[in-house]
């Protein structure tokens, strides 16, 4: 008996009036996958560095993220501590083992309990380091890996994300190019999360509510 | 030396022919004032739209042949209806796919067929003779005219020159009125729900007059407004532009 795979592919080819050996079609597909042509990219994000970061911050604010600007990475522990204090949260944060977060002067915040590793759902606040920010829509881009648990992006009530200004791009296409440079063409980390604001739902009477299943608040620390 | 007058064939449409000849005469006046020689081929009946939209391609095709044969000799064909003009302009060529001879004739006719206000503004580029109408009006964008032919600014531009007339837009002038040809009787209850929203929008503007470019929509909205006891007058845009909005409005009592 013919497998469903062959049956489906066969039906597609019959409907299209083609065969799997059709050379021009094969070439067209090979070309597109290899060249990854860019389509229409909005002008909105194509700005000089400082303005691009400004746009990123404005757009993140429009989708209910909060943003703090820090002059240096070393300010991150204090900013985390301050965020938790301002919201009357316990001085506790869970983060990944990412060196960008590990090599920070955490000892300056004596009250702050820092734990490392994935979340099992008990953490009120999580800290992640974004690979990029996208100015176009105020989006942060997070990739999974040994040092970057995906659960931290979704289970804690409060998600704090560090974005380096040098990684703020105008558009998603620049982010894709960066992923290809880092992981190799056609290769992806297990999970890439593009996060634009805190979790929300409008499923009850189309009323917009924040904090559905994911984080109730998204706080972005823009460094640099 | 004077250039010869453009020869215009008026496709009056079955609804105007039957319900409201005033619209036809208004269209003639507007065209003649603009320097056209207007003819109305007597053998015209229906453009075939009801058949086309009911899935009866053969029926639609038969009527399309009739219209093509009657009108193909004119310089322009003008229609005081967005949906009938759209039928000829957008859908006729599609009815003759695979028949090069007829297809060409259909395409030629399509190219010179125009909705009335679009013809006056986009093709002739003339301003109608000065007329006046004291009061406020709102304009309903009939679906086919708007979305198949891009009729939106033209009627408003012409109306802006009418002395004493102020246009007040509805919240959603582009929303369908629920007529939909045979839809309004096939799914009468839903059609009613749609026109109900439309008349609510019309009434909330507080205007004296509702205008549009398609008699089907106008009959539907006028009938609903009248049933609701509204005093909003309903007329085809050509009547006002031609200064012929003097008799009873659509569905209005005769004096």
């Amino acid at each position, binding site marked *: 008996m013919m497998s469903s795979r062959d049956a489906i592919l066969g039906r597609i080819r019959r*409907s299209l009036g083609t065969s799997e050996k059709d050379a021009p079609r094969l070439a067209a597909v090979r070309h597109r996958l290899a060249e990854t042509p860019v389509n229409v990219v909005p002008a909105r994000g194509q700005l000089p560095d400082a303005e691009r970061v400004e746009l990123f911050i404005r757009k993140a604010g429009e989708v209910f993220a909060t943003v703090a600007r820090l002059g240096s990475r070393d300010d991150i522990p204090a900013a985390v501590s301050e965020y938790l204090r301002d919201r009357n949260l316990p001085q506790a944060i869970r983060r990944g083992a990412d060196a960008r977060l590990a090599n920070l002067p955490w000892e300056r915040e004596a009250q702050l309990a820092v734990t490392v590793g994935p979340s099992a759902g008990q953490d009120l606040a999580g800290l992640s380091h974004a690979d990029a920010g996208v100015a176009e829509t105020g989006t942060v881009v997070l990739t999974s890996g040994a040092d970057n648990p995906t659960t931290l992006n979704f289970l804690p009530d409060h998600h704090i994300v560090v974005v380096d200004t040098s990684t703020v791009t105008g558009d998603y296409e620049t982010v894709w190019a960066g992923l290809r440079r880092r992981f190799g063409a056609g290769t992806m980390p297990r*999970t*890439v999360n593009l996060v634009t604001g805190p979790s929300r739902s409008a499923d009850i009477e189309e009323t917009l509510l924040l904090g559905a299943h994911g984080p109730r608040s998204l706080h972005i620390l823009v460094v640099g | 030396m004077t250039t010869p007058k453009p020869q215009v064939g008026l496709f009056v449409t079955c609804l105007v022919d039957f319900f409201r000849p005033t619209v036809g005469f208004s269209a003639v006046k507007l065209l003649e004032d603009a320097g056209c020689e207007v003819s109305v081929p*007597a053998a015209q009946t229906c453009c075939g739209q009801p058949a086309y939209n009911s899935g009866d391609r053969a029926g639609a095709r038969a009527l399309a042949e009739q219209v093509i044969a009657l009108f193909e000799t004119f310089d322009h064909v003008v229609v005081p209806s967005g949906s009938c003009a759209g039928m000829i302009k957008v859908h006729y060529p599609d009815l003759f796919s695979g028949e090069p001879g007829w297809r060409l004739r259909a395409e030629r006719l399509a190219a010179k067929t125009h909705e009335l206000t679009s013809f006056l503004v986009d093709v002739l580029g003339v301003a109608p003779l000065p007329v006046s109408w004291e009061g406020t009006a709102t304009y309903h964008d009939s679906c086919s005219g708007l*979305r198949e032919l891009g009729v939106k600014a033209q009627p408003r531009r012409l109306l802006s020159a009418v002395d004493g007339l102020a246009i007040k837009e509805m919240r959603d002038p582009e929303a369908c009125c629920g007529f939909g040809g045979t839809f309004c009787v096939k799914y009468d209850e839903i*059609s009613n729900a*749609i026109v109900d929203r439309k008349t609510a929008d019309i009434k909330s503007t507080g205007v004296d007059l509702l205008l549009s470019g398609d008699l089907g929509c106008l009959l539907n909205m006028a009938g609903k407004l009248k049933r609701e006891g509204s005093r909003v007058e309903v007329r085809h845009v050509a009547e006002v532009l031609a200064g012929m909005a003097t008799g009873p409005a659509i569905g209005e009592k005769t004096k």
Partner: protein
Amino acid sequence: MSGGLSSASFPKNAHAALANPPLLKAIAHIEETLVSGRRRAVDALPEFEALRDAGRDIKAHTLAHLDLYLEAFEKKVVEAGGFVHWAADAAEASRIVLDICQAAGARRVTKGKSMITEEVGLNAFLEANGITPVETDLGEYIIQLRGETPSHIIAPAVHVNKEQVAADFRRVHTKLDPLRNLEEPTSLLAEARGVLRERFLTADVGITGANFLVAETGSTVIVTNEGNGDLTQILPKTHIVLASIEKVVPTLEDVATIMRLLARSATGQEMSVYTTLSTGPRRAGDPDGPEAFHVVLLDNGRSAMLGTEFEDMLRCIRCGACINHCPVYRSVGGHAYGSVYPGPMGSVLTPSLQGLEKAAHLANASTLCGRCESVCPMRIPLPKMLRHWREKEFERHLTPKKARFGLAAWRFLAARPRLYGAVTRMAAWSLARLAGKDGALKQLPLASGWTRWRDLPAPEGGTFRTEWAKRGRK
């Protein structure tokens, strides 16, 4: 279909919907939220129309090479350590999912919002086989509690009001304080969050759909707002993606382009909160993520749409804009259609999936106003395809006899100008006389569908052509 609704009883369903004020009030929210939201988002992006062209072109290219992109996608999924399964129809898809669940020893399954699982009727099948599926999207959770199907593809519980949700929560969440306050949507959301959190953490398998399948990388992409889709796919040991074959796009660049259209068209957001690309199972050293990753590719009638007048429908990205802007949907809601997919896109798609006999008449439930096409991000000519179904229905003599007779009579008359002239002259004169000075008719036999709801404006008297001839004109 559940709830006793079927496509065949659309007029009856519509009648019931129109007599249901809470339903009408609930769907009226669409105007000030989704419709005006889309308008604002589109106005704020000058490139929107160019993006629509690009989106259409991407999908057209992909469909013309669909077999090759599916093979490329499959290869990349396997390279990343995942499994790809091919399902010819709904039954096979359900069977494959069940087999994976059983092999994983699963009892409890969480689900992200997925119209494809609705299409194949997955929940009922899993339940019948001893597996409990839990919908985790708030809207889907609500309708699952109510034993209903989605009435909208992106706002499944759009027909439900908050009082009904509160009543359902009290009925089902029996372990919670019966005196708790559930008046506000915020407390309802908080309760669902609490209840579902435990389900997320204890599920054995997570099932999601996909908005895109990326051939370049073997990634599946989901676009959500609540975060439930992500919790569904990262917490359980097994993640199953059920997606239809037309979801594949060539590259990440193509995802970016369509992403810019999707949320704007759907909810008026510039970007949904969570766009997640998943590629294979967890990697060596990863501290979380599923250990097994399966993609089930569903055909279910789609391959047969290629190369036909309905091929363009396969460009659909399920944004729901056509539904939100449809005057018919806005009058009766989604359940009246009796099909998984309501509104214009549903009326085009359903006959392809269910067969012409069962669903062709859905295509008649449209004014052909064309607003659906004017807002479709993929520029799908929906009215044209609705008309195609009407043609097929007519060709196969499925059109009701009365309508066929009416069309034949009209054609007979309209093809005979002299007779037509005489008949219309008589009729116009008679109606004008009948109306007298009233100018309109309150009732008219044979036109009761019209006069039941509105007056019929009377003809002026003589037909235009008679009056024209009287003036000696040609």
